[in-house]
């Protein structure tokens, strides 16, 4: 059977085979990039996922000491913040405080030099991670979960031209859209900030809290550069990212305990 198949191919020339293979490739590229439902073959896939995890285990031995120091520092910082929060905000509604929970996860595969950069994490559905959850580090936001298998999940990082996140200029409380232009992995652009707002270099950009993915006020970056765009009437703002996405290892996936309720509510109010 296979002999017959191959002899036909040899007889009718390898051009036929070449065209066929390229068509398969185009199909894969298009369907994979548009819908992301073809993720069975990306690195969330058990084979390469577990392979990368083993490789990472091996590599993380080398970094253990440094990793410990970072974790210890983070613990200290969290305890300090916890204390101050308890002191200051006893009035806050307890449902809001408990709304967001954090699942720690390790980055086992990462890229920053393509147009559609993705990150693979070593936690998945079994650990409570679902599609659409936000991913952060203590320094700032990282990306959004687009696919989760039982033990692994794939994250579209901020450095993915398909990722859209809303941000807030902390000082002026102005809302804007963050997206990546596909060039510098340290900078994302912020659009739709009107020109009457007095933006300054070094202004902090934080998450807006208007989505279910990120809690309000988590850092994104600072204004590195901005200019007026006469065509759109808005500012073009370059945001210097707070997180060095090239070297992240420990991240936290945010679960929103009232996510389902909010989704349900928004759907119902649209139907009315």
């Amino acid at each position, binding site marked *: 059977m296979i002999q017959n198949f*191959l002899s036909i*191919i*040899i007889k009718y020339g*390898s*051009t036929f*085979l*070449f065209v066929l*293979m*390229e068509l*398969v*490739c*185009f*199909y*894969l*590229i298009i369907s*994979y*990039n548009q819908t992301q439902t*073809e993720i069975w*073959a*990306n*690195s969330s*896939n058990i*084979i*390469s996922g577990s392979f*990368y995890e083993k*490789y990472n285990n091996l590599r993380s031995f080398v970094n253990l000491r440094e990793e410990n120091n970072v974790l210890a520092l983070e613990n200290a910082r969290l305890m300090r913040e916890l204390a101050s929060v308890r002191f200051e905000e006893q009035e806050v509604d307890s449902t809001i405080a408990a709304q967001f929970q954090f699942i720690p996860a390790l980055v086992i*595969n990462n*890229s*920053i*030099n*393509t*147009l*559609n950069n*993705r990150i*693979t994490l070593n936690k998945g559905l079994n650990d409570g991670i679902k599609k659409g959850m936000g991913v952060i580090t203590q320094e700032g936001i990282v990306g959004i979960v687009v696919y989760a298998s039982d033990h692994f999940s*794939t994250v579209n990082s901020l450095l993915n031209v398909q990722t859209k996140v809303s941000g807030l200029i902390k000082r002026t409380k102005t809302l804007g859209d963050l997206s990546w232009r*596909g*060039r*510098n*992995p*340290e900078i994302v652009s912020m659009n739709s900030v009107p020109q009457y707002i007095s933006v300054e270099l070094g202004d902090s950009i934080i998450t807006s809290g208007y989505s279910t993915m990120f809690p309000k006020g988590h850092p994104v970056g600072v204004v590195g550069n901005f200019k007026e765009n006469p065509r759109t009437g808005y500012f073009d703002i370059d945001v210097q990212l707070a997180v060095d996405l*090239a070297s992240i290892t420990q991240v936290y996936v945010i679960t929103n305990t009232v996510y389902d309720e909010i989704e349900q509510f928004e759907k119902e109010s649209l139907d009315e």
Partner: protein
Amino acid sequence: MNSVVLVNLIRFIVIILLQVLIFKGINLNSGNFQYFHILFYPILIILLPFSLAKPYQLLIAFALGLIVDIFYDSLGVHTSAIVFMTYCRSFVLKFIEPRGGYNIESPGLGNAEFPWFVGYLAIMMGLFLVFYFSMEAFSAVYFWRIFLNTLFSFVLSVGLIIIYQLIFRTKL
């Protein structure tokens, strides 16, 4: 097992591992300058013996591309480029055929002349990289990006492959 097959098999395993574990992680870029990419694995196809039938070359290239793609999270991109390069290989070899034809078994630096090998390598890697970066961007809007990516990655990858071939002058 035949020693040609054995050498090629070992080379495939080692170079695929090098590509997805080491070269993928190396980042020589900073700031706005993001054009250095090390794409080393096309050498596997470039070094295949002359006698191997073209459909087999294409099937090997297809499998190789899929393996690399799975690790790069870019299903189809590497595969289309490596299949394209493999398809062009016989035409390139005919185009640069020395007077009197080929009297060696495979095009490695162990038995080929240095200038001939560099010319062959450069044409093949040029074809591969242009196709690869075009597929990666998938739109002519990114013309400059494709051009600069190809240029800088070409210098880096071809340089590394020549060094590799100078160190391991395999006859097969």
